[in-house]
Each structure stands twice: as C-alpha cells, then as structure tokens.
C-alpha cells in the first residue's frame, strides 16, 4: 500500500448559502451589482426598469470598481438594506 497526502484544499466547496427567494417583489429593495464592463450598462438599466414595473420599491444599481476583485466594503454595506440581490457577469 502507498500512503499519499490529499493535494486539494479539503474544504467544502460551497460554504455559502443563498438567501431565500422572495415570494414577491412588492415593496422590496433590490440591489443590482454590475462588474463594471461596458455591456452591463444598458442590460442592467433594462433589468432595473423591469424590476420596478414588477413592483420593486427601489432598485439600487451599483458598479464594482474592479471586475476582477471582490465587491468593495461600501458595496457590501449597501447590501445590508437589500431584500434581494442580482449579480452576474457582463461583457
């Protein structure tokens, strides 16, 4: 027999869980986080408008300073008042 050491991180690959899905948008504050790429501008503007039409009380669109880095502290602080968050990549 050969004994070897595990080369991987050995951690749970998904240590985070998503917040529960909202039952309805009525009165909700929805955050939209853009990675800052040019193509996200019109896409997220249209998304924000669609969310408002469907009853969101407020849509808070924020843009990360660096699409390669985590969201800045200021973005995370704003997220504390959001009921839901839309995030993704855009190019």
């Amino acid at each position, binding site marked *: 027999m050969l004994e070897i050491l595990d*080369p991987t991180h050995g951690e749970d690959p998904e240590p985070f869980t998503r917040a529960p899905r909202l039952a309805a948008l009525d009165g909700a504050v929805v955050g939209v986080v853009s990675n800052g790429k040019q193509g996200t501008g019109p896409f997220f503007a249209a998304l924000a408008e669609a969310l408002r039409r469907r009853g969101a009380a407020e849509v808070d669109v924020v843009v990360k300073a660096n699409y390669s880095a985590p969201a800045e502290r200021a973005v995370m602080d704003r997220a504390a008042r959001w009921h839901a968050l839309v995030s993704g990549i855009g190019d």
Partner: protein
Amino acid sequence: MSTSLTSQLQSARHQVADDADLQAWLRERGWTDGLPVVPPTPERVASFLEWAVLPPDHLVGIEPVRGRAVTAEKVAINAVLAGCSPAQFPVIVTAVTALLADEFALHGPTASTGGAGILLVVNGPARAEAGMTGTFSALGAGDPAATVIARAVRLVLANVLDVRPGGIDRSTLGHPGKLGFCVAEDEEHSPWPALAADRLGLAATPGTGSDVSAVTALAAMGPRQIMNEWTTEPEEILDTFAAEMRANMRHYSIWGGDYALIIPPQLRDHLAAAGWSRADIQRYIHERARINRSEWAEVGKGSVVMDKGDRSYAALPSADDLLVIAAGGPAGGFGAVIPPWLGTKSRAVTVPVGACVNC
C-alpha cells in the same frame, strides 16, 4: 527525515494499492493534469518543507475573493505531484506568494474568458539551486526545471483553488503558456541588472548574477515572436518590438499594462554595444508603443471607436511597467512580446524568495 514533521502534516491521508493505482485514482478525481505524477507521500512532502525551513501550516497567502488560505503543506504536496525537487520548492512558494498579493488580483486572470497564463521570471541564486537555465528554447520547454516549477503552480491553482477549465477557469481558448510559462533570466549574459533587482530597487552588477533570489509573476497572454536580423540600431530593433505591441493593442486589448519583452543575446548584444540600459529601452518603448483608438476601425472594431477616435492610448502606463527580460539561445535575431492579460486589472508582482506577503 524528521518523523515529527511528518506527524505535523494536516492533510487527509489516502491509501492506494501502488503507483499505477495512484495515477488512475488521481486522474479520476481531476487532481492531476493527466500526465504522470510523483506520489505525494508524507515523507516526500516533509522533505520539501524541511528544505525550505517552513512549517506545514505556514500561511503562503490567502486567495482574495474566496478567502481561502494556502499553506506551505498544500503547496509542497502539489510540488511533489508535479515532479519537482526539494531545491525547487522555495521558488514555487515564492511564485504562489506573488500570485496571492492583492495587486495580482488572482481571480481575474485565472477566471477570465480571456484565458491568461501566468508568466514566472526567476532571478538570483535560486535559479542555480533549482537547476534552471535561461537560454535555448527559453519559452519552449527548454528548461526542465522551469517546466516542473510551472506545473507545480498550475496544480496548486487547480487543486487548492479549484482553477480548473470549466470551473473557476472560464477561458475561451487559453494559450500554450497556461501549460507552463516559467523562465530563468540569463543574468550572467545580460548587459543589464537582474529584472528583480531593478524592480525591487536593489543594487546589482550586470553580467555577474544578482545576490537576491526573487520571482516575478505576470498575468500574461501568449508570447508574440518578432524577428529583426537586419539592423544593429537599437531604435530599429525596438521599433519591431513596439510594432508588435501596437498590433496587440489593435487586435487584442487597447488597455495599457505590464508588458514583458524577452530579448535573446543576438539583439541584446546590439543594444548593449550602443550602451542602451534597461531604462533607455523602457523609455523608448513607452513613447513608441501607442495607438489611437481610431485604428480599431481598421481591424473590424469600428463600433466601439465612438467619439474617442483621436484619443491616444499607451501600451505602458509608465515606462517602468515594461519588464525587459534577458533570456534565450545565443543565435537568432528573435524576441518576444508578452502582453498583459487585461490592462492594469492585474499587476506584475515581484517577491524575493523567503519573503512573506499578507501573512
């Protein structure tokens, strides 16, 4: 071998029947790159840590997006897998340290559809200790030590940080440098101080080899080879390099960042004979490697020129952002331009061997 060190190793231990079983076992789990590996036994891993005088739980760094800690033990396990020797381990630890520096912004270049590789440039006595050269086929697997060092870093990214194609790595194409992109600077035959010495602000005598071992990491696209064997004039030689950089700005990305030039001996000799320093080269290239955005209309990108056609873009935000690297075989008027992954979203990082960043 210290039995106390093997007992300190925290990684899970697996039992496999024999070496053949090991190869299949690892491949089935996606823990190798498909090439044969060396079994990472506790004794081998401990010998790497002993060579570098690092405890297993030494924190090499923390991946900045997911906050995942990378320990010396995990780097050593993957270095063994890659076929490295203990003497190469300090270079690998330093390379991983550089990747985990904030300004390298590792997640971007390893996750981007752009498909960057990681260029590693090794300077100082660590080159000889690791058995590295920097001459023939410097960018083409001409140096077995560089090949396994780059492989070790790639396995760390895959196994410790989940940077696997289709997972974290979303590369559309990637490039062959993703298989291994590591070069030792040929300091002993260079008219300039070692790259790392210049970047770290250390004194160094050209042509003697620097005293300080260091690794420079650059999130890099594939090398673009140039040829100019028909002049000895520095300006004309460098005009060829600058033209290739402008071509990259037209065809790939207009954004300026850290570019690397690999300059082999034949062209180096002409530059040295004319008394051109690394700083002279950097200043000249900084001025020449520029395009107007209107040029994008000539290469099918007219839709994004908009009202910025007259705006001039420099390949280098500042002259210091050019990495001038001496490497390559003795004959041939060739050179290479290695562009950055994407502008200044990731910056080149130089770390001395034995240094610690964010730990």
